[in-house]
């Protein structure tokens, strides 16, 4: 599916409309092409979704086809953090610190029901953070409990499409909003 045909997401259209002139656009295209094809995820897995994330990197599903094969153990070298699993109150500050340590541009994929909303632990649990967006800003949500590897792959491709629509101006806005949130 080509990027222009992809119109099932309103926020992507908004991002596209805030574009710049032709010269800048062609520079953006080159930058975005490079970025979207070398997304390096952080090895961050708290529970069951982590196993499915490993399965996505394994031979059958093979993450590497899309330029995501290099799992980085250090947040300094990672581009995207796949929040795979439940985040509890004790873990939330750690996750926030990991996110702050990553260098721009950085993206977040919330994988699985727990990271999206608390999932099966939404009711009755006293310790689970009800959705990872309370801690860090999320780009793509991948539903499932746990999501199939195909679902994670689709989510990562969505993220690539999102990166394709970025412009210099929208990037500036994005990093400004991140640092604003940080100071709060």
């Amino acid at each position, binding site marked *: 599916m080509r990027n222009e045909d992809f119109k099932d997401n309103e926020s992507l259209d908004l991002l596209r409309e805030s574009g710049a002139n032709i010269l800048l656009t062609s520079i953006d295209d080159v930058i975005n092409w490079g970025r979207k094809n070398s997304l390096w995820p952080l090895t961050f897995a708290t529970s069951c979704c982590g196993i499915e994330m490993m*399965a996505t990197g394994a031979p*059958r599903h093979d993450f590497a086809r899309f330029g995501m094969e290099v799992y980085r153990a250090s947040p300094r070298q990672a581009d995207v953090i796949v929040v795979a699993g439940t985040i509890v109150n004790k873990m939330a500050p750690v996750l926030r610190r990991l996110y702050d340590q990553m260098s721009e541009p950085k993206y977040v994929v919330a994988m699985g029901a727990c990271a999206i909303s608390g999932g099966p632990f939404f009711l009755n649990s006293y310790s689970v953070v009800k959705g990872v967006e309370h801690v860090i800003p999320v780009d793509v949500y991948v539903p499932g409990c746990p999501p199939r590897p195909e679902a994670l792959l689709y989510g990562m491709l969505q993220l690539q499409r999102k990166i394709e629509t970025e412009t210099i101006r929208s990037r500036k806005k994005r990093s400004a909003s991140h640092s604003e949130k940080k100071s709060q």
Partner: protein
Amino acid sequence: MEEHLKNSVTDGQEEYVLNIGPQHPSTHGVLRLVASLRGEIVTNIEPHIGYIHRGIEKMCESLTYPQIIHLTDRMDYLSAHINNEAVCLNVEKALEIDIPDRIKVIRTIMAELTRIQSHQLFWATFGMDLGGLTCFFYGLRDREKVLDIFEETCGGRMIVSYNCPGGLMHDIHPGFQKRVKEFIEYFRKTLPEYDQLLTGNVIFRERTMGIGKLTLGEAIAHGITGPTARASGFSCDVRKKEPYSAYDRIKFNEVLFTEGDTYHRYLVRMDEMRQSMDIIEQLIDNIPEGPYAVKMKPIIRLPEGEYYQRVETARGELGVYIISDGNKNPYRVKFRSPNFVNLSVLNMLSKGFKIADLIAISGSLDLIIPDIDR
């Protein structure tokens, strides 16, 4: 150890504290280890847990018994099916329901398949911890074949939720027996590959043999169970000692070693994969006819009292303790998780060894962190 201390850079005078985790690829999750070091020698390990404490035990008190099944899946997610079985057996024991043979046999086959895929993942990640990335690809390649069988019958890949109090969610897929036989035929051929790649590897043996020795007495004193204890010669297999489901009608020998080091903890798991295939082969051709579930009341209420059931998961003995006050919700549920207990020997085992050996030792304990914290 004393000699090592004398020769190290700091002459054993200063202590260096290193924090490993909670985000670290070789702690297999969000375990945090605070390691005190003298030079490269570990003097003390302090595990910090609770980074994935989700309050499952407390949540169970406000859920009905069929609902609890979906939470036990997510405790030890690599033995999801066996965890469910523990709760179901406990409920069935309390209600004094006779379970037809068909259900028992299917449960046993599924449990052994679960054990195989769990040990495959252990092999894959253990090899990766010690620097052999090929293991990761081989292990997960074969694991997908088990997950295919699960998906066909249960609908889920890893978290199956196939058991329910009184039987199974639905009947097995018509092609189940054929697929399982195909898998066993395939895996009998590929398991020697595993041995060639890792078991006989000189570097691997050097890094694991004699490392982290656990004696029989220590294993019993700490309450260690599962493959970790069986490598030290502690005969503790619940499948043998207190047979549940269909384990009383099959012939198998407990895998036992006496050395108790990292290498033998690994060997127990390799042999258990072979043993699980033997168990499945004994059962797969004669699954009895009959219903796949007993008709239960729409709302399950356990009679007042206390109930305990233990099963053998891929990591050791899981106990489920339910106190009922006669309502549809349990009054209290307690899980005796094997991983929490097995973690308690980590400090003792890794004292005096190098920091790289700590990774090998904690890898060989095969810890699942959400099961420790629950």
